[in-house]
């Protein structure tokens, strides 16, 4: 817990996100798990390098995305889920399909 800075990241507003629709919902989940402002979550933002997430936090994100969108994310996919853009693309592919 000492790794993260205190009091900087505000809690996201309910239903917040970059725009509406699926992408907005995905970003809202990421924001909630990562304690980040949805508006700060550009596609290029990386979970570990930019948001200081540890492995448990990334695993929690996977779990929450599975829950929110009723999809399965196989363990093999974990390595490919490194950024906001990765997550958006990954979920969109499975929800659209």
């Amino acid at each position: 817990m000492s790794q993260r800075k205190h009091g900087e990241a505000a809690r996201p507003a309910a239903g917040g996100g970059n725009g509406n629709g699926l992408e907005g919902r995905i970003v809202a989940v990421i924001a909630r798990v990562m304690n980040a402002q949805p508006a700060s979550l550009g596609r290029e933002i990386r979970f570990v390098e930019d948001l200081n997430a540890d492995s448990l936090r990334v695993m929690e994100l996977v779990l929450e995305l599975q829950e929110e969108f009723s999809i399965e994310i196989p363990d093999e996919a974990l390595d490919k889920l490194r950024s906001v853009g990765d997550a958006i693309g990954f979920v969109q592919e499975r929800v659209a399909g």
Partner: protein
Amino acid sequence: MDVVVTGLGVLTPFGRGAERTFDALVAGRTAIGPITRFDASGHRSRIAAEVTDLEAGNDLPPGDERTFDRFQLMAVLAALDAARDAGLGDGPLGDRAAAIVGTGIGGLETIERNHATLAAKGPRRISPYFIPAAIPNLAAALVSMRLGARAICVSPASACASGAHSIGEALWALRVGRIDLALAGGTEAAVTPLGVAGFGAMRGLSERNDEPARASRPFDRGRDGFVIGEGAGILVLERADHAARRGARVRAILAGYGASADAYHITQPDPEAAGMARSMALALEDAGLAPADVGYVNAHATSTPLGDRLEAKAIRDVFGAKPPPVSSTKSALGHLLGAAGAVEAAIAILALERGMLPPTLNQEDPDPQIELDVVPNEARPHAARFAISNAFGFGGTNATLVFARP
């Protein structure tokens, strides 16, 4: 080498801050009310002393309130308050500072929540934070991380004596010079459906559901069980030379520690109360005191019919025909389980500091088997030099701490 108390951190249903809790006790207020954290309608006991708002502000990193169990968060907040009270800021406290924070149960709410997920959705939906939030030692570990305390880091478990044993074990480590400073105490958050059902199944809890304020009545003839509570208490303990070097304010001397086992029964105290008496006698011997030196006893007395009577007997066995005033602040605060021994240690210290004894509430019908001055119903000005605090736990484990006014 004396070991001194330089900081108090107390978080109870009365709120955050040792003084806030002590002032409420002296004012005769109660922290007990109907259970609000879950629907308790099917439970035998539907009352508790709940911490209704953790009020963490910026003291906890964002997200931790969601990630960790309440018993861990409360421990971190109490530890921060204790460190700040001791003039240590938010650390880092260094390689010779310990975090010894006990708990009776651990992350019960977390376990219940994840078990519900397991049953409803299967094993692949369990949170990766389930284990860290459930395990008892993460209270001490999070305290160590938040305050940069890098010496021994453990969570002693002795049920309702955990907080007192943590302080006592820290005393020994400080005396032999293994450490210079310790954040020591206990924490508990077991006001959960399973916790309340479990203690209820043992018929351990008061079922005076219609009169929450009158439910916890240690020593009174109408007592019918304890009222479950939650909270955390942490003391900053230091070797006296260490405290003197940094010019710290000494709030009390931790003068002695006694610990014993009944070796008798999993939940019932030894009917001779020999283990309780030995705990007190050992603590006095450790402090180099005679019974007559002690001016106040903060009792363990939880408001159970048998336990209170046996503690009263043990006190008479140790202190003789004229024991000092004895009060049980569980009458107002409920039973904070693994946090109780540490919170009540802080209360005993404040009683010495203020020259004021907090009362035992709800004394309406004296029990003829309790031959004690229990400071009934109202706080009493009383200057004492030494006070003891008892804590006894399931398994027949006993601890007594002795504090001295500096």
